[in-house]
């Protein structure tokens, strides 16, 4: 397992370093959004990560994120997308898993015995939380006045 993890890590690192020089490719965005959406799903009552308008969030990211942050999110995206290939019960890339398997995988990964996996999960969770709560409508659900030049619309709201 350690060997497989190391192999994914090396492949991820090379890919991430290469791609970090440019913006997100469309396929990468799908991988990334699949992870972020599964990390914070909606339930019909409350919006999830997938339900909100994140254009301003990603615009701020594109403008301000330093290389370390870009590499970190990229690494988490690539690594966690392909890690399920080596997990029994999954055996597919993350974006090909159904909702239940995605959820089970995320729960298992967040308490993985491997420090690197836990840190990458933390990266995804932190971005999911920052993105979700950058939305003015979501903040409003928690009684937080917006008063911000940041995002204020929820596409389904």
């Amino acid at each position, binding site marked *: 397992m350690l060997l497989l993890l190391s192999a994914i890590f090396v492949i991820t690192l090379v890919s991430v370093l290469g791609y970090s020089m440019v913006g997100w490719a469309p396929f990468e965005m799908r991988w990334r959004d699949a992870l972020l959406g599964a990390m914070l*799903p909606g339930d019909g009552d409350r919006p*999830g990560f997938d339900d909100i308008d994140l254009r301003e969030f990603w615009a701020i990211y594109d403008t301000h994120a330093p290389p370390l*942050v870009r590499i970190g999110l990229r690494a988490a995206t690539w690594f966690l997308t392909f890690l399920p290939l080596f997990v029994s019960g999954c055996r597919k890339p993350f974006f090909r898993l159904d909702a239940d398997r995605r959820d089970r995988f995320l729960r298992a990964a967040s308490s993985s015995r491997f*420090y690197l996996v836990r840190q990458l999960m933390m990266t995804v*969770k932190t971005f999911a939380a920052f993105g979700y*709560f950058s939305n003015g409508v979501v903040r409003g659900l*928690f009684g937080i006045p*917006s008063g911000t030049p940041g995002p204020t619309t929820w596409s389904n709201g």
Partner: protein
Amino acid sequence: MDGAAVRGREKLACDVAVVGSGPAGASAARVLARAGARVIVFEEGPFARFRDFPSDGFTAMAKFYRDMGASVLMGNAPMPFLQGRAVGGGSVINGAISWRLPRDVYDEWVLNDPAIGDAIPWDEIDAATDEIEKDLNVLPTDDAVAGPNNLLMAKGAEALGLEHRRISRYTRGCRGLGRCLQGCPEGNRLSMDLTYLADACAHGARVLSSVEVGGILVRDGRAAGIVGRASGGGTVTCEAGRAVVLAASAVQTPVLLMKNGLRHGPVGLGFQGHPGTSMIGWFGDPVRVWTGATQGHEVTGMRKEGLKFEALGYDIAVAAARLKSAGRAFAEEIRALDHWAAWGACVRAKGRGRVGAGFGRASVRFSLLPEDVFRLRRGVRVLGEMMLAAGAEFVTPGVHGWHDKVAQRAVMARFEEEGPLDPRAYTMVLTHMFGTCRMGADPSKGVVRPDFRHHAVDGLYVADSSVFPTNTGVNPQTSIMALATICGRRIAAGTGQ
């Protein structure tokens, strides 16, 4: 003046160039400007009007934190460290906490190097601190704006018989908006941009924002000025007739020295800080950690053991990210996010690290010693017990390899014995950094003399917490300001020139 507008070559002249506009730079600049010196302060970050501070944590971190708050130090437990990057430095985005330099910490310094006691007498530090507290309206947090997160800590500490108190803060008219870490949108936190820098400017100083200083001009063994790169693409050269004062933080100051070949003494070595971890607990009544005074209550009873506890208010997104779960369980926990309280333990770590300047950037290495991890375990135990004693239905230590949820104090008490010894099991953030250009009479042990003068280059001073011989175990802003004020006085008096 805004560096964003500088596109060509800008040439400036002054008596004293100050690099960094945080508490250290602002304090030194103020004293010097008041003494009649022509002062220019250089700040890498932008000038932020308090009405423009965003309400969400992400935008604030993107705009006003170095590396978006994701600067990471490496070692046996990699962890982020937070630094402000705006005019006013960390004072713009911190909890406005004020602590006087503890006498026992000062005595440690003097015991190790008696010359420090001669150069910086305790009475002078004490008097400078009195002035700072008066200038910045330092007062204990009013219960009316504290909010449940702070008040519950008082209840928990009382139940455990631990010495505790309301945190003294630099505020005026605080309404407990809980937005200190995003920048106070009402300007009620008395940060440096609103106070000491404004006062310095009123006495003729200039502040140049969005200029990253990379070069220190040295001629005939004497600091003669600085060279910076403006965010607008131009360069700024400033001749300083009398002194160059470095006040860019315990991470950036040694890097600036090293980048300029000024590697005299233990520059970059001896890095110390305060690693901190947090405890969250679920209460039956709403707590809403994103409201009330961001950090309004503290437990001081274990300070001499190297532990201090603070209530931790922060943006709702940060509160969510601290939850232990993922996926649907995470979304479910977020629904009741307003019921979670969050408190932190700050450790006076004995471990020492180093700051390097690889590829022109700061790289920090720091590892906790076994005794630091023991202290951390004790801190987690006390935090958990205190929270349960305050009425939490359960707490979540957030330590890998131990219980996710604990509802009984007796179980929490076992953490001090059972808690993991691998520091990577803990989720930590490092705050307050020290010691990378420490002062000392012996040139082989100090980068600057006890009067802040660089040992090898005349006219070059360091005024920030990199000169502190050790960490302090408490929030250092007031100590930094007191020492930087004294540094400014020494330069104004022409000591050693």
